[in-house]
């Protein structure tokens, strides 16, 4: 397996969706011998983790309450028409 083949399997590898044991062994073998791909896997995992762990957009309770109140006012008004 070369780097291009490895890259094609990267999404499935991350998502634990490589069922074929032989293919999984090939992927792991490549990962164990290719420093570039090892770095790509490590830093891609960190990319996902940092976005999961640090939401860049705030959604304060005050905003949630305001939006919910507005939605429910519209919904109730549409029912009473």
């Amino acid at each position, binding site marked *: 397996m070369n780097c291009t083949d490895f890259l094609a399997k990267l999404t499935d590898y991350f998502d634990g969706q490589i069922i074929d044991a032989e293919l999984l062994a090939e992927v792991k073998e490549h990962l164990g011998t290719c420093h570039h791909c090892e770095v*790509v896997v490590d830093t891609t995992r960190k*990319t996902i983790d940092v976005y999961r762990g*640090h939401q860049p957009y705030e959604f304060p309770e005050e905003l949630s309450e305001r*939006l919910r109140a507005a939605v429910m006012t519209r*919904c109730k008004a549409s029912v009473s028409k």
Partner: protein
Amino acid sequence: MAVQTQSTTEDLTDLPPEIAATLQAEPPHPDLELVERAKAGDTSAFEQLVRQYDRQIFRTAQHITQNREDAEDITQDVFFKAFQKLDQFQGNSKFSTWLVRIAVNESLMRLRKRKTSKTVSMDQDVQTDEGSIPRDFAEWRPNPEQNYSQSELAEILRKTIAGLPPGFRTVFTLRDIENLSTEETAEALGLSVPAVKSRLLRARLQLRERLSRYFRKTKEGSK
């Protein structure tokens, strides 16, 4: 029947396979009961659904539109449309996936109206090879985000994801931030599973490449 529903998995091994499979099937999602109550006119049940998913819908809309005011309007519109179209929800997918699909459509429509983005379709952006081949092989610091304040980090993350084409950042948002499965993401976006996987790979690699300039190890080992 009451005894059967309380059976343990061990007990089920004595039953015919088709009956055991039925009993082992997942229980209905709790949202379904709320949806049914809302369909019957119980607005408090619908309000509970709004409470559960407003954050997810708002964040999805803001990630796609990159605009807070648009995200607020879209969040309201999504729930109002959902309320009006509740009868069309048949329970074949999760209620949250159905909501996300409405949110994605509303967000893309908003982008088209704004016309500030060159590409506003899920079907575009796929021809580019940018970011699909890694170029940066620098290692990152062990906890790279710790070198930045919360506000600095938020700015970096916003700026970085804003640079992705809408089709890519939408897939990344749903799959990796909002934690939808690949199948749910495909359903919400009206894409095939292979198309989601392809966009997800490119989105992840492009973000990785762009974040690397902030998070890579330096010779001095500092920020």
